[in-house]
């Protein structure tokens, strides 16, 4: 996942559908995000390229909706319900994930090893 400024980003992604869980009056997804264009990319432990300012999954609560949907720690979220997440601020990302009128979020995530897996499958 190398990013060349000005060029379109290409990545092998996996579709993940998470159904939000109602806890009291909150709808939770069961994971934590880190990163964003207003954050410091050098402290991201999951990114390969330390200038990558995308949104990453930093924690997945065990037994939560995200784990059930096969979201893993270290995944980079590329799209949420069609909205791009590669060039957003941290707060915008949070807002896109926690919209109160949506029960389901469809994510496109990418992780290391997906490209190899696809290549091995094709050979």
């Amino acid at each position, binding site marked *: 996942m190398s990013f060349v400024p000005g060029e379109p980003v290409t990545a092998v992604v996996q579709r993940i559908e998470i159904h939000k869980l109602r806890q009291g009056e909150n709808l*939770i997804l069961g994971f*934590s*995000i*880190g990163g964003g264009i207003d954050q410091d990319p050098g402290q991201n432990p999951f990114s390969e390229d330390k200038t990558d300012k995308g949104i990453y999954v930093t*924690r997945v609560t065990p037994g939560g909706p995200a784990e059930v949907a096969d979201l893993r720690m270290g995944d980079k979220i590329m799209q949420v319900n069609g909205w791009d997440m590669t060039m957003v601020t941290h707060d915008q990302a*949070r807002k896109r994930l926690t919209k109160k009128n949506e029960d389901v979020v469809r994510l496109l995530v990418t992780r290391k090893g997906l490209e190899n897996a696809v290549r091995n499958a094709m050979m």
Partner: protein
Amino acid sequence: MAARIDFATQCTAQPTSDDNWGETTTAVTGTSEHSLSQEDIVRITKDLEESVGLGCRRYLSLTLGLLLGLLVFLTPLAFLVLPQVLWPERVQPCGTACEGLFISVAFKLLILLLAVWALFLRPPRAALPRIFVFRALLALLVLLLVLSYWLFYGVRILDSQDENYQGIVQYAVSLVDALLFVHYLAIVLLELRQLQPCFCVCVTRNTDGETRHYNLGQLSIQRAAMVILENYYKDFPVHNPALLTASKSRAAKHLAGLKVYNVDGPGNNATAGQSRAMIAAAARRRDTSHNELYYEEADHERRVRKRKARLVVAVEEAFTHVRRMQEEELKKPPGEVMDPREAAQAIFPSMARALQKYLRTTRQQHCHSMESIQKHLAFCITHNMTPKAFLESYLTPGPTLQYGRERWMASQWTLVSEASVTSSLRDGTAFLLKCIDFSLVVTTKGIPYIKLSEEFIDPKSHKFVLRLQSETSV
């Protein structure tokens, strides 16, 4: 030389076989009553032969300087007085301007006198081997100046018996002005020129490797040697020959066990090959002297630390026994009242043994006599020094000036140099300052030409942002 004397003491001590004389070498100290150490012999001979030569040269230069000074001071006065004496009736009377010039001559001569006293009439710091080139040149310049003025005076004024007295007085004033300018030149050449540092000299003592660096200006080799020696007496720890015997005995042991046999018959045209074979064999031999050195040093370290602990405790206890008498006790003294020397003598015995043992372990016992220790103790008591301050001069070897005059050997230095000693220092100059049993190796390096560039930072440009790393759970 040292070997010869060692042999002498060994013969009187005990008969040992010839093979391991290196292992029984005794250290040469200056305190044995039967043998004169090498230092004493050389010192006596040098004192005898040099007191005559240097004294002559110093007095010669002193008389020449005095004569020149007298000439310089009396010449303007002579210029002023001679017309009044030789042709008084023809001389024009001195008007106002002329008498004003008298005051000027008087004050300028006074200033010249004070300036010469400040610059030249100082006690000499050192006796250098060759003449001081700048001083000689300046003296020559002054002599030429005065002689040319006298020549002019003699031809144009004395011979023609000039009547214009004001002109003569102005002539005398111009001479005094010229002399003041020569004095300015003397200050610049003798004092100011060497202030700006442009060489860095590295001074190493050849016996134990103590090294210091100094920054010097443009000096001749002999003057640089003088500055270095003045700094040597305050910077370098005192030279202690007793500390060097260990490495010499190790070196002797290294080669002592090898003997070379020539198996190819009596043709000995391979002496160079022989010594090389010996070196190679000695290097290949698996000896454990590094092991011995390591354990010996660790052992010595521990022993020194133990003795030091005992010494510190003993001195602290000794110092608690004496205290300063308070003001209100003056009327009714509590016990026996003592002056510092007696107080020192009273508390010295309780710490003497520990101190003696410590000095023996660190091999400094010949640097400090009992007399000097008691004097130092009295000094410390007088000035309210703590036990730690008293011990400072015994725990670490101090500069040479701290010890008695017999350690200074200030008249035994020899300057050994390949270039002429009056030539100036240059990058790469090396010379040697030899004392009796050690020498100082001096190398010169030029201080690099520094090119400094500037970078302007606008104070408003100091702006900061926080490094954010937030994690939000959704």
